């Protein structure tokens, strides 16, 4: 029997803005908070290395991507759109950046990890800077996929593969959601878009911007990843925003008038070289690992541990913030995930009446799935690097087990889901597996692993025309900031040098820049690049999630950085 909707929800639904849903929603002229699911239809795309007939064809499943929009405090029509996402890949944004000092409500960082029963008002909401759009990745957070034969476990296993999970298609998902959101909000359609990615979100931002800036090559056979329908959708968008380019490819210098800024919070990019250098640097005497070893009485011996994750686990320290006990940051993510499963919290945090979203109700998701195996997270982990296991797969496995019975009241409000479905997953272990361990694109030799060095090259090419802000968190050993500049310098075929400058500019509280000097012929299609600057402020008390541990400092730095680039900050 369906339970009646509680009175408080009815009241909230009257005072809050309507929630958006489905792709057929009419154009929205009023800019108000909303939440919804953006449907991404099955998409045919392929990988190749220059041979059309020997390509790897893939076709995705339908996705319903959850998004939440918070309108700017003042003049939203004139404000930029900040697009937020976390990383993983396949980790939720709802329990990440949306819950950590960016929106109007936030988890309280004064309560230690895992504590607290609700969200508080955020003293530094980014709605002062602009409009905020949070997007949960495919199968992460509240997003879910649709498939036929959903009752067959084998068919569900087949879903967790490259056709749904690879870095470039993941980025394509986000572009589709953003462009469709903008198309549905004509008053925002031409506004500047600032991409805000955390952790793997840095790789995703890299892929997104490269797809956007070079979109013709992603539909015309030049790039490794080919998604012709995305290329057409991008062309349509830019024709609407830049009417002078009707029927012509829009060049990057024009595209960056809209997509010309990225804020990357502890970005994993360039993952491959950064990971190599991180291990190398942390194994040098005097590194943080030696200091931790001395503190906890377990001396660090490089030959005794496969990687830093193993040692930190032995030392009982959190790799995301090494001055805290193991699991500290995941405690916050877990807490947010638990709280958001209570509908009133989700309504409060999103500022939208999510009970109006048909896609939430069990009746609308009979073909939905989140996990291959509803009972256990049944993937063999012995063949997996320790870091991937410790950072991603283990937390996902714990979460899958803990949510066999959904916490919160979503079951009561929206109905009982199929065993393989979930209302929320902070980390989707099966999707993580497909990204990190096994997918056919990766196994067929395509650079479809997030750590492939291709993505660093793409980051460096984006950097030529995209203004970039990257955080430098002192306590983060997952994305080790000290390895950032050296890992860019490893791209010796592109870069002459990448060095850190700590010279203060204009009275900055937290100075810091990375100066990247390019080789003369770094990119065949771009004449003499010269030097580009990445803003790189130090957050001396911060964990991986900088917005959680030093929210005010981050907010002020971002506001100042945007002001310097001509953004109007009220």
């Amino acid at each position, binding site marked *: 029997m369906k339970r009646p909707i509680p009175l408080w929800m009815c009241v909230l639904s009257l005072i809050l803005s309507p929630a958006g849903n489905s792709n057929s929603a009419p154009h929205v002229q009023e800019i108000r908070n909303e939440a919804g699911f953006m449907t991404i239809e099955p998409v045919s795309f392929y990988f190749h290395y220059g*041979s059309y*007939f*020997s390509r790897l064809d893939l*076709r995705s499943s339908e996705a319903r991507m959850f998004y939440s929009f918070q309108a700017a405090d003042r003049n939203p029509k004139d404000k930029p759109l900040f697009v937020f996402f976390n990383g993983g890949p396949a980790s939720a944004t709802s329990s990440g950046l949306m819950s950590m000092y960016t929106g109007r409500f936030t988890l309280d960082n004064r309560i230690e990890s895992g504590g607290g029963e609700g969200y508080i008002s955020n003293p530094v909401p980014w709605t002062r800077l602009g409009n905020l759009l949070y997007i949960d990745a495919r199968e992460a957070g509240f997003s879910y996929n649709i498939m036929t034969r959903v009752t067959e476990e084998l068919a569900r*296993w087949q879903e967790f593969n490259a056709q749904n999970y690879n870095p470039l298609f993941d980025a394509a998902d986000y572009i589709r959601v953003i462009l469709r959101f903008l198309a549905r909000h004509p008053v925002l359609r031409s506004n500047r878009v600032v991409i805000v990615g955390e952790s793997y979100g840095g790789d995703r931002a890299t892929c997104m911007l490269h797809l956007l800036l070079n979109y013709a090559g992603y539909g015309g056979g030049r790039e490794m990843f080919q998604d012709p329908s995305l290329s057409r959708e991008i062309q349509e968008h830019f024709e609407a925003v830049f009417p002078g380019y009707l029927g012509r490819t829009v060049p990057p210098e024009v595209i960056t008038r809209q997509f010309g800024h990225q804020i990357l919070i502890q970005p994993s990019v360039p993952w491959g070289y950064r990971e190599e250098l991180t291990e190398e640097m942390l194994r040098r005497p005097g590194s943080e690992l030696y200091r931790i070893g001395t503190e906890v009485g377990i001396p660090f011996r490089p030959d005794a541990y496969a990687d830093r994750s193993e040692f930190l686990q032995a030392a009982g320290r959190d790799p995301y913030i090494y001055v805290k006990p193991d699991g500290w940051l995941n405690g916050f993510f877990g807490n947010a995930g638990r709280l958001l499963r209570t509908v009133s919290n989700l309504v409060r945090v999103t500022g939208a009446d999510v009970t109006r979203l048909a896609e939430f109700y069990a009746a609308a998701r009979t073909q939905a799935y989140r996990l291959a195996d509803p009972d256990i997270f049944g993937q*063999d982990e012995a063949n997996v690097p320790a870091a991937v296991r410790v950072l991603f797969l283990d937390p996902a496995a714990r979460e899958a087990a803990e949510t066999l019975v959904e916490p919160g009241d979503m079951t009561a409000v929206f109905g009982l889901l199929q065993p393989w479905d979930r209302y929320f997953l902070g980390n989707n272990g099966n999707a993580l597996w497909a990204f990190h361990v096994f997918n056919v694109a990766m196994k*067929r030799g395509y650079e479809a692993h997030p750590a492939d060095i291709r993505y660093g090259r793409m980051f460096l090419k984006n950097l030529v025309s995209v203004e970039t802000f990257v955080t430098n968190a002192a306590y983060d050993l997952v994305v080790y900031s000290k390895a950032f500049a050296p890992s860019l310098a490893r791209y010796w075929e592109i870069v002459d040098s990448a060095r850190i400058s700590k010279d203060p500019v204009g009275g900055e509280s937290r100075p810091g820049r990375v100066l990247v000097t390019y080789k003369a012929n770094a990119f065949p299609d771009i004449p003499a690049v010269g030097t580009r600057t990445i803003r790189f402020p130090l957050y001396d008390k911060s964990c991986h999630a900088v917005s959680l541990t030093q929210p005010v400092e981050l907010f002020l730095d971002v506001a100042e950085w945007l002001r310097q680039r001509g953004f109007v900050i009220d």
Partner: protein
Amino acid sequence: MQAKRTGFCRLSGIITVFFLAIGLARTLPASPLGSAGEGSHRFQFELFGGPAQPGLSAFNSLVDYDNRIQDFSYDRLFDSLRQRGGIISWANNQPSGRKKIALSFPLGMRFRYRVSRRVSVSLGARASLGRRETDFSFEYTRREPLDYEDRESVRYFPYLLSARGLAVLAGVHYNMSAYRKLTLEAFLAAGPVFSDCRYSSDWEYVWHRQGPDIDFDVSRMTGHLEEMGKGTGIAADAGARIQYPVMKRLAIFLEGVYSYQVVKKIRGKGREIRGDVETTWEGRWAIKKETIAAPWGTMEAEFPTNYWPEGSASSPVRDFRLDFSGFQARIGLCLLF
């Protein structure tokens, strides 16, 4: 089975025509100009055929290209993975493979009119067919650490190359008597040729993964690819022949011929089905150069195709020629009246 039946029918047809010709020769009244081989008849009708080694090197290069792609995408990739420790070992099970068109059996007919004792003119047609249809499969197995094994198999049913040409030839023949009843002849003939070609395959691809905790098909796909083309070109024959009369109105002959038969401008349709996605196109056949640059190596290849998608980075490096040219040995029957 289909191929065998077609070959049998063709042979039966030839034998039937042979005996019909003999029968017809017996029923016709004797010519006032004398017996066969003695230049006593004005008209001749000839049937001929025989094995030929057609050029078709450009068309056959599709097989080389497909073989190289397979080598690059599997053998070289797996070698690279093994060297980097990604896999323990790999193996390929492939009992047979793609085959080229190596032989054709042109058949022809011509009417001749003797304009003088030594010179005749002719009008005829010659059909050439080169076709190679093979069913084959391969299966690559790679062993990974911890007893995981991936098997990728592709089955072609069939893999087909086919090229046809119909030449309409006008010729001039010069003959002379040789030893006893034998006649020697030299001839030249030329005319237009109408050709078509077809490259197609039906395939099934399966990726099976097996390990201590899993055993399932990771992916499975069926597909179809075909590229077709038609065009018109020039054909010319230059040959010599020896003829021997077996009856008053019937002779047999042997010819050694060099046939030039080239079609340069070929256009046609293409169609590809992969899974549930179908793509169709139409274009001119030309040679495409591909550079495949993958992390484990680089491969350059040229192959003919009629697929030139809009906005594609590649452009034709040169024209494609459907070339049946080559030497041919023929045997024929000549009916005089």
